[in-house]
């Protein structure tokens, strides 16, 4: 499985694909997606040129949400998000109200997640101190730095195989307003190097005092993570625990069921999982809203796959 559809909404706003020459209608209420289509790529258009045109549109200063779709070459595995990122950083004066950014909203038919070439995105945090929502798709070449940022509420990294360095960068960040943290750890086959020890600081050290939503998704170490979360202090502060898209099985699910603070959650998402029907029933009996849809089956442990990897 992979991601085959564009976001319809981003940061609560309807997404519009911005095309050259289109005036911005309701710039404050729209999330603009700027991408280089296959046709534009063939015509040698550059993402940064299109973005420069976007910046000249009247009303652009009201824009709050921006999505970076495929840049030139993204579909041909040629070129990274670096130029687009630099252009957005350089546009800080022109986008004073920008609150939400998604770098690399690229679909599987354009480039599978493991073929998206990211870059060092850390400068975006400094350039946009009012940023509240940050998404990135693709773990290759990705760096976030360890930003200090007082407004960021949502940080999401979707990947088929995340390097532990990114997890460490997040753990080292100072994000006092962070409410929603979602990391897709992926599989070793596609570059995942995170072990459960690497996520322990996030679970145990009260790094993000405002955190309400923790997603450690698409992970092949979901059982170990569940076991660690079951006894971690973070469970006392979370409203939502998201272990979806991974290889969670009975082992991790039973650890969660036995966790003293599990009842403090509002919801638990494990969709795409390897938990047996009997244990799913036990999960559904918890005083928590549980999404245990998309059960997978595997002959043995080696046959379990995360949902998004290639």
């Amino acid at each position, binding site marked *: 499985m992979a991601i085959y559809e564009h976001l319809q909404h981003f940061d609560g706003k309807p997404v519009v694909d911005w095309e050259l020459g289109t005036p911005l209608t309701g710039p404050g209420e729209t999330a603009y997606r700027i991408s280089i289509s296959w046709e534009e790529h063939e015509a040698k258009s550059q993402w940064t040129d299109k973005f420069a045109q976007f910046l000249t549109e009247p009303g652009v200063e009201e824009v709050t949400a921006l999505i970076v779709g495929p840049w030139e070459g993204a579909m041909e595995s040629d070129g990274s998000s670096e130029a687009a990122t630099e252009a957005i950083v350089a546009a800080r004066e022109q986008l004073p109200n920008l609150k939400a950014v998604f770098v690399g909203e690229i679909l599987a038919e354009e480039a599978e997640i493991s073929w998206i070439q990211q870059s060092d995105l850390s400068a975006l945090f400094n350039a946009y101190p009012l940023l509240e929502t940050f998404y990135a798709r693709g773990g290759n070449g990705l760096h976030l730095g360890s930003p200090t940022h007082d407004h960021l509420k949502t940080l999401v990294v979707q990947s088929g195989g995340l390097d532990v360095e990114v997890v460490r960068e997040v753990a080292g960040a100072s994000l006092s307003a962070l409410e929603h943290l979602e990391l897709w750890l992926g599989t070793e*086959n596609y570059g995942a190097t995170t072990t459960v020890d690497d996520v322990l600081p996030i679970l145990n050290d009260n790094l993000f005092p405002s955190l309400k939503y923790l997603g450690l998704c698409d992970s092949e170490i979901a059982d170990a993570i569940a076991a660690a979360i079951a006894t971690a202090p973070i469970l006392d502060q979370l409203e939502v625990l998201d272990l979806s898209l991974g290889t969670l099985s009975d082992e991790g699910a039973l650890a969660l069921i036995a966790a003293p603070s599990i009842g403090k959650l509002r919801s638990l998402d494990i969709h795409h999982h390897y938990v047996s029907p009997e244990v799913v029933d036990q999960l559904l009996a918890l005083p928590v809203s549980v999404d245990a849809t998309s059960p997978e089956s595997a002959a043995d442990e080696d046959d379990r796959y995360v949902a998004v990897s290639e």
Partner: protein
Amino acid sequence: MCSYVIVGNPDSNRIDFFQQALERLEYPPARIAAWADLLEGRTCLPKIVQAGDCVRIESPGRDFDVERLLLAAGAAEAPSGERLSEVEARNLLFERGRIWVPYQWYLGLRLALRQIEDQLAECEPHRLTNGLAEIGVMFDKAQTHARLCAAGVPVPESLPDVRSYGDLTEKLRKAGWGRVFVKLSHGSSASGVVALRTDGRRTQATTTVEMARSNGELRLYNSRRLKVYEDASEIAELIDALCRHGVHVERWLPKAALNGASFDLRVVTIGGRARHTVVRQSRSPMTNLHLLNTRGDVEAVRARMGAAAWAQAMESCERAAKCFPNSLHAGVDLCITPSFRSWAVLEVNAFGDLLPRVLHDGMDTYEAEIRCVEREKPGELCILPN
């Protein structure tokens, strides 16, 4: 009202569906000339075809006896290398999904089509709904691609004459392309198709082909399950093996998505007009229906494209069909890009009208074809002069 003669495999559901359509339209049942009988010389068309009949050629596929006979027929012409002798071909044992020697099969098919043509020349005056030489062209992806190109039909660019994996990577580098489809030149539908992506360092091949080794021999199988190869030497082995059978390499255009899955269209043209259309949705690079993928909503695609672009896309399909002027029907596969603004014809299938229960103007493909023949005046479109 004419009577039909079908050259086909008697047990095929294609023949059942056509007979049912004849019955609904109050035609007499078609008489069947079995591929196996024709290939073995047990019957010949002059004994079956009567004056005023309409002859329909159906797929020889999905029948292992016929496959063996076509392979045997192609043995004499097949070049050395990937080749089975006539005796070997006749004695093949069935193996599910096994890719034998597609080029030899194709040579056998062409020979059989020529035999049919010769036999029809001996028959009483009749109509024929398939151009026999055109069937041959449609089973050759490179020839089909060239014909479409020459007619100005939008198609993905191709890399001609790829001989090996090394040759492919070199040509990709020169073209600056990051991803292509490698298809068996003479495979049908999703047989032997590889979606290949590379950035010059890393390479990934998503495919329905499975490799198996037995006594040092590499065997290829079509599978319903997609497999992803990441190992460069395995990918090289796979592509080299396919190249030995002959491949057609095309740029992998990104496909548009709707409702959480990407899709392409199968557009059946009948009498040169785009008619029955299905949206083949998939969460993989392969969208062929028999890979257990699902059908989507044609109206939703039309709405997203807008009426004008949709009409132009259908016109491209009709233009593709016109490249095969003696074929009453053709199954055109059309890729729409993610912007919904451009499109390209991926395949033209000689036997691409098997779309049970899909109606257009209240008729299924078979009824529409029968009605179309009724309207044709002798000497037009689907009639071979005799």
